[in-house]
C-alpha cells in the first residue's frame, strides 16, 4: 500500500514550507544584522553629536549661572519646585547620592594624587584619596566670575575624611585647611572656555544604608538620571571656591594647582539645557587624550590619505584594466596578471600593512634616507605617503575589477566606429572607450575610496597616530596622520579606564560619521551600477 500522489504532494509542500522559512529566516537575520548595526550607530552616535546636556544653576543670592551656550532649549527639572521648598542642604544631597550611584562602576580608583577628570565639557569629577572604594566626589562647572584670589601655587588638595576638611598643600610645604562649608572649584587646561569656572562639591558616604535608601527614593523621583550623566551638589552654607590649573611636572605627570578661592552662594536649583554640539564635533581638535573636543584632524587625515591613495590607484587600476580588456592576448602573462589581481583581493589587510611597513617604510624610505639624508629618519618612518601607497595596493583589485566591468559594457560598435573613422587604438581608448565607461570607472573609484576610508589594519603599521596637534600638511607626506576609523579603535580600546564613558560616546559619534560616509558611498556605487546596467539593457 503505497502513498497516494496527493500524500506525496502534501508532504512535499510541508517540507518546502519548512525549508523556505529556514532560508527566509536566514535572509531576515542577515538584514536585521545590518539594520541593527546601523541603528545602533545612529542612536548612540547622534546622542553626543546633537544632545549633549548643559547645565544651568540658580544660586541662593538670586543670580543665575549657566554655561555660556546659545541656541538652547531649557527643560525644567521636575524636582525644581521641591528643591526650593526644602533646605538647600537636603535638596542637594539627593542629587549627590544619585551621582555616586552613577559613578560607582565606571571609575577605577585613581592614584594617590588628587586628580581631576574631565567628564563632559561642563562637569568634572574628582577622586577623593580618603574615600572608601566606590565613593566619588563630583564637581560641576558653571559661569561664575572669580573675584577674589587668595590662594596661589597650591600643589595638592586632600580631604580629611574624619573632620571633613579640605587640606590644601601649598608649594612651599605649608598646609591650609578649609571646613566642610567650602566648595572647591577645579578647572583644567583642556577645558578652555575662559569664562567657565568650576565648582566642586564632594560627598562622603558615611552611612551606606542611608545612602542606599535614598538612592532608590531619588532614582524613582528623577527622570534626570537618564538625561544627565552627572549632577551635583554639596550643600551647606556659603562655600569657597578654589580654582585649579592643570600643570605638568618635569616627568610629565599632571597635577593640579590651586589658583584662588572665592566664597560662593549655595545652589538652589538647576536646569538642563540641551545643546547642539555637532559643529564643534566636526571642526574642533581633540583634547584631553581624545576624549573631548572634535575630530577634525581625523577627518582631514582620512580625506588626505584616501585622496593620495586615489591619485595613485586610479591611473594604475585603469591602465591595468585597459590592458587586460583591450590589449592583452590570451597568453601566460595575461593569465598571470589576472591570477595575481584575483589573489591580491584575498590577501589579508594586515599583510598589506606588514608589507607596507617592511618595504615602503623601512626598505624604500630607509634607502632614501641612507642615500640622501645620511641616515636621518626623514622618509624612513611611517607616514601618510607610505600609508597611501599601501592602501593603493590594497584597493587596486577593487579598481581593476570595476574598471574591467565598465569596459566590458562599452559596445564593440563604438570601438569599430572609431577605428573605421581612422582613429588609432590608443585614441579610440582615450576618446571613446574610457569616456563611455566613465560611470563604471567612477563606481570603481567610489568603491576603492569606501574601502580605503574604512580600513585600519594596514594603517596601524604604516603611519596612523592616535593624537596629533597639527594637520599633516607636509608636502611630501612625511608626517603621521589621524584617521577616523583608527580613532574609533583608539577611543574604544586605548582610552584610560577613568574616561571610558566619554571616550565611548565620542567613539560612537565618530563611528556614526564613518559608517554614514561609507554606506552613502557604497549606496552611490550600487545605484550608479544599477543605472548603468539599465542603460546597457535599453
Amino acid at each position: 500500500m503505497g502513498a497516494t500522489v496527493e500524500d506525496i504532494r502534501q508532504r512535499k509542500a510541508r517540507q518546502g514550507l519548512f525549508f523556505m522559512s529556514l532560508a527566509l529566516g536566514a535572509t531576515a537575520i542577515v538584514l536585521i544584522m545590518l539594520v541593527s548595526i546601523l541603528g545602533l550607530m545612529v542612536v548612540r552616535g547622534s546622542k553626543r553629536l546633537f544632545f549633549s546636556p548643559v547645565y544651568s544653576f540658580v544660586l541662593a543670592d538670586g543670580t543665575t549661572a549657566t554655561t555660556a551656550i546659545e541656541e538652547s532649549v531649557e527643560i525644567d527639572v521636575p524636582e525644581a519646585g521641591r528643591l526650593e521648598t526644602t533646605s538647600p542642604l537636603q535638596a542637594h544631597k539627593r542629587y549627590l547620592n544619585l551621582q555616586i550611584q552613577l559613578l560607582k562602576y565606571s571609575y577605577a580608583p585613581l592614584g594617590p594624587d588628587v586628580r581631576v577628570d574631565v567628564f563632559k565639557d561642563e562637569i568634572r569629577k574628582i577622586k577623593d584619596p580618603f574615600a572608601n572604594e566606590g565613593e566619588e566626589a563630583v564637581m560641576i562647572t558653571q559661569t561664575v566670575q572669580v573675584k577674589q584670589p587668595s590662594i596661589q601655587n597650591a600643589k595638592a588638595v586632600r580631604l580629611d575624611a574624619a573632620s571633613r576638611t579640605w587640606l590644601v598643600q601649598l608649594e612651599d610645604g605649608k598646609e591650609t585647611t578649609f571646613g566642610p562649608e567650602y566648595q572647591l572649584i577645579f578647572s583644567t587646561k583642556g577645558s578652555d572656555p575662559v569664562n567657565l569656572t568650576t565648582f566642586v562639591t564632594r560627598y562622603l558616604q558615611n552611612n551606606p544604608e542611608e545612602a542606599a535608601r535614598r538612592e532608590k527614593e531619588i532614582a524613582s523621583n528623577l527622570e534626570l538620571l537618564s538625561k544627565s550623566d552627572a549632577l551635583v551638589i554639596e550643600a551647606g552654607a556659603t562655600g569657597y571656591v578654589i580654582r585649579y590649573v592643570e600643570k605638568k611636572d618635569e616627568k610629565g605627570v599632571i597635577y593640579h594647582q590651586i589658583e584662588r578661592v572665592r566664597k560662593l552662594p549655595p545652589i538652589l536649583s538647576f536646569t538642563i539645557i540641551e545643546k547642539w554640539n555637532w559643529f564643534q564635533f566636526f571642526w574642533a581638535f581633540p583634547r584631553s587624550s581624545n576624549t573631548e573636543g572634535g575630530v577634525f584632524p581625523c577627518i582631514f587625515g582620512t580625506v588626505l590619505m584616501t585622496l593620495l591613495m586615489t591619485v595613485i590607484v586610479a591611473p594604475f587600476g585603469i591602465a591595468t584594466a585597459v590592458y587586460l580588456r583591450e590589449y592583452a592576448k590570451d597568453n601566460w602573462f595575461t593569465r598571470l596578471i589576472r591570477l595575481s589581481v584575483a589573489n591580491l583581493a584575498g590577501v589579508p589587510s594586515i599583510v598589506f600593512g606588514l608589507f607596507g611597513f617592511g618595504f615602503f617604510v623601512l626598505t624604500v624610505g630607509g634607502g632614501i634616507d641612507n642615500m640622501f639624508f645620511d641616515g636621518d629618519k626623514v622618509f624612513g618612518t611611517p607616514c601618510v605617503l607610505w600609508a597611501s601607497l599601501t592602501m593603493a595596493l590594497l584597493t587596486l583589485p577593487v579598481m581593476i575589477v570595476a574598471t574591467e566591468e565598465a569596459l566590458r559594457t562599452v559596445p564593440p560598435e563604438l570601438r569599430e566606429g572609431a577605428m573605421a573613422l581612422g582613429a588609432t587604438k590608443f585614441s579610440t581608448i582615450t576618446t571613446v572607450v574610457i569616456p563611455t565607461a566613465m560611470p563604471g570607472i567612477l563606481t570603481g573609484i567610489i568603491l576603492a575610496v569606501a574601502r580605503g576610508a574604512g580600513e585600519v589594519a594596514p594603517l596601524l603599521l604604516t603611519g596612523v597616530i592616535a593624537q596629533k596637534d597639527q594637520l599633516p600638511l607636509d608636502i611630501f607626506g612625511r608626517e603621521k596622520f589621524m584617521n577616523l576609523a583608527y580613532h574609533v579603535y583608539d577611543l574604544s580600546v586605548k582610552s584610560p579606564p577613568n574616561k571610558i564613558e566619554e571616550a565611548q560616546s565620542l567613539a560612537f559619534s565618530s563611528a556614526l560619521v564613518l559608517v554614514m560616509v561609507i554606506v552613502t558611498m557604497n549606496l552611490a556605487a550600487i545605484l550608479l551600477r544599477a543605472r548603468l546596467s539599465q542603460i546597457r539593457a535599453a
Partner: protein
Amino acid sequence: MTELTPVVAPLSEREREREKLSRTLSRAHFIDRLGGWGITVSAVVVLLGVGMIMVFLIKEAAPLLMFPDRHSEGTLSRMFLPQQYDGYPKPDWVWQSEGVHEKYGVPLLVWGTMKGALWAMMFSVPLGLLAALFVSEFAPPKVRVVAKSSIEILAGIPTVIVGFVAFVVLSTILNNYYLTHTEYFTNGLWVVFLLQVATFVFAASALGGRASLVKGGPLFKAFAVLVAVAAACAIAVVCGSILERLLGTTLRPIFGVEKYASLNGLLAGFCLGFAIVPVIFSVAEDAMRAVPNSYREASLALGGSKWETALRVVVPSAAPGIYAAVMLGLARAVGETMIVLMASGNTPILDASPFTGMRTMSAAIAIEMTEKPQYSTGYHVLFFVGALLFMITFVLNLATSQLMQRLKSKYGAN
C-alpha cells in the same frame, strides 16, 4: 547654366594635404605606440607590485632559516616544537615577544586564528548559504535587488565598526549575563545542546509526513517547532540549576567554562562571522545564479517542487561555487585583523574553550610589529607569521578561483 567649378584641387595643393595627413598620421601612430607601451608598462608594474609582496615576505622571513645561529630564539624547532622554558612545569608553546627571553610559539597563534575562524564559520556558513539560496531561488525580483544591495552595504561596513560594537556593546552584554546568570549559563549550556538535538529530531518527525507526532497544517507545524525550541531553552535553563543541585557538583569544566574572559573566542567568532556572511552570500549567490534556467525548468517539468529544484538541482550544480564561497569566507576569517584585535582579548593561550581569549596571527602582527627593530629576531618571526598567513590565504584563494573557473567553464560566463 551655372559655371562648373573644378572638384579636384590642383596637384600641388593635394600633395601638401597628403603630406600634412601623413605627418598627422605618423604622430597619431607614435602616440598610439607610446600609449600602448604605457598601458603595458603599468600592467607590468602592477604585476611586479603584487609579486613583490610575496617575494618580500619570504625574503624577510628567510633569515630565520638561513642564519639560525643569529636568531636562536626563532629557529624552526624553537617556533614549532614545545619548549621547556624557565618557570614552566613542562615543555609548552609560549608566545611572549617581550622580555629577556623571547618566546615564539607560533602554533599558539595558528591555534588562535583557527579557533576564531572555526566559530566564525559555524555561524556564517549556514546563514550565508541559506540567505543566498533564498535570494537566488525564492525571492521575487524586487526583494532580490533590495536584499543583494543591503548585503553589499553590509559588506562595506568597516570591520573596525564591527569590532567596536563587539568590544563596547556585545562584550558588556555577555559579561553582564555571565556575571548575573553564571549558574544557568554554564550548566544550562549542555542541556540546551541536548534539547536542541531533541528538538530537531522532533522537528524532523513533525515534518516527516505520516509518522508525524504533530497533526495539523504546515504553518501550525512550523509554529509548533518554534515553540518547542523556545520551550527547550527554558527547560534547559531550569534543568541546569536543578541538575547541579542534584549532582552536588559543578559541570563547568566539561564545557571549559571554568575560565571565563569577557573578550573571548565566541564573541570574536560571532563578529567575524558577521563580517564574512556577505562574502559567503555574494559568492554563493553568484554561483547559484550561474546555473542555467533550463536546469530549473527541466526539474519543474518533471514534477519537482520549487524547493526540491533548489536543493536537488541548483545546489549540486552550483556546488563548486558554494565550496568556493565557504573557502573565501574562511580566508577572510583567517586574515581579518581589526575584529579579533578588539574582540578576542589577545591572550596567547592554547585553549579550546570558546569562553577564553586567543591571539591570532593577524593580531600579533598588528600589535607587535611596530615595536620590533628592523632585522631583529622578532621582526623576522613576525614576517614569518605574515608569510604563513599569506600562504594560507593564498592557497584558499587559489582554490576558490580554480573552483569558480570550473563553474564558469561549466555553464559559460553570464
